């Protein structure tokens, strides 16, 4: 499911609907209902990761570990390759009687570079998958949304969604036990 790029925000008069919930349990049940209703362009927002919410939203597992694996292997191969080239090709020197391609001695740096590249892969991959940094987002215009990083839980459904209807979607979220529901302008 595509997340819109920065310049692909909803075009209509509304961004979407934002509903606030009191507890993680409320949010979880509401998410399951929203998922079952067939919405696709929506998201939940929490101050901390809630156990089981990925399932309630129908999210798939992140592909990040694969990115990290590839990055790590690249780093390790690069590190080993660099040492090989330096010690067996570019400027071979006999050091402490060891062969030019003394692979045990190459392992520490190979490992370290593998980890370094993997870590960068994880962080950059995570930021890329999350489309961060995204300092400007329509949700920040809502006053109640300030509490998302404190103690409030939200569901936002974007107007992009084919099932979105300003009044019907608002009513649905109210019926799911939302503490407040807000229609956000674009």
């Amino acid at each position: 499911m595509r997340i819109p790029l920065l310049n692909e925000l909803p075009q209509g008069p509304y961004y979407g609907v934002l509903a606030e919930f009191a507890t993680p349990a409320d949010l979880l049940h509401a998410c399951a209902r929203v998922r079952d209703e067939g919405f696709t362009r929506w998201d939940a927002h929490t101050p901390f990761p809630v156990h089981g919410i990925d399932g309630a939203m129908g999210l798939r597992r992140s592909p990040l570990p694969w990115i990290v694996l590839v990055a790590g292997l690249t780093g390790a191969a690069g590190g080993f390759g660099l040492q090989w080239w330096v010690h067996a090709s570019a400027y071979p020197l006999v050091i402490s009687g060891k062969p030019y391609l003394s692979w045990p001695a190459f392992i520490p740096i190979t490992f370290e570079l593998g980890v370094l590249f993997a870590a960068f892969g994880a962080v950059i991959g995570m930021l890329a998958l999350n489309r961060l940094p995204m300092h400007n987002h329509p949700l920040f215009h809502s006053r109640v949304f300030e509490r998302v990083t404190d103690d409030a839980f939200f569901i936002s459904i974007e107007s992009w969604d084919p099932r979105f209807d300003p009044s019907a979607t608002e009513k649905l979220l109210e019926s799911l036990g939302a503490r407040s529901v807000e229609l956000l302008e674009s």
Partner: protein
Amino acid sequence: MTSEHDHVVSLRSEEATIPPGHSWNRIPVIGSACALLGVVGCAILGPANPKQFFFSWLMSYLFFLSLALGGLFFTLFMYACQGGWGIVVRRVCETVFATIPVMATLFVPVLFGLHYLYPWSVPGAAEQDALLRWKAPFLNVPFFLIRAAIYYICWSFIALFYYRLSRGQDSTGDFAVSARLRKFAGPCIIVLALTSTFAAIDWIVSLTPHWYSTMFGVYFFAGSFIGFIALLSVVVPAMRGAGLLDTVISAEHLHDLGKFLFAFTAFWAYIGFSQFFLIWYANLPEESFWFKARLEGSWEIVSLLLMAGHFGIPFFYLMGRAVKRRGWTLAIGGTWLLVMHFVDIYWQVMPTLHPEGVRPSVLDIATFLAVGGCFVAAAGWLMRRQALVPLRDPRLAESLMFENA
């Protein structure tokens, strides 16, 4: 807090024992049959080649002993760390290490072969060798025997203490038992660490009495631990496959076993590589000869096999999430690592006997059957007469409902 711990979840004991008529009831018989076969084989082939017999016996013996010691370490760690997930598998661990008294009797043949196995035990050896003279206060037969006795007394005491108290809790459900076992876990780990280190030095390192390595105790521990986790990774899915505990042990527990297997594969490789690497790098003849013997001729192939097979392949195999959560894929990993652990012990012990190269012998198989048969028979017999899960452990409920986040 939640009311979980107001009640003690009680499993009915029929759900957690081997039902009568189940195929697993025959394990002791199968084990005994293998043991008998092995003993007969040893009796026939042993006298012709006593040195080979004793080396093979030592090797097979160390393999199974290391599994039992690994089990003891694992259980003690679980108590000390108050880990909740492992309680459902703890009884299996206890069954494995409760065989230690049996293993003690299986050590006796080694004592008959001391002169074949250990150069320092040959009378008059110290006269020609300055190093053996230096080490004589430690490497002499009486002290060796006393130390062996100490090891077995300590191990048997700890093993039986933990086994009996845990089994006793099945009927009483007494919280104080858990507290007591946890309290003593720390000191027991220290005793176990020191005794197993010196046992490894006595029984493996002194095969080549000129060699030494401060890491060896840790290396032996690493191998034992991963051998045991591998054993669990085979036995637990096998039990589930046989219809035992399949409602108790879930994919979550298998996942955790798999994670341990993965982590300790890497740990073993780290320890093994560190030991090799430091000796390789400094290249001092007084230490490096031990590795040199294992890098010549066909032993080099075994070394490469260990690197790739004990680390490389399992590391990538066990990385994936799905592999660890399915019984048969985990069991494949466990079986492979058990085989690799055997190769590890073989690689440690045998080059002393066969420096010219790998020389498999029928006695290897015969002794493996003899020792292994006894080990399996003992464990199987214990399994039959008790619950397969600590029925009334206060934290059993938590373990049953355990979920990987």
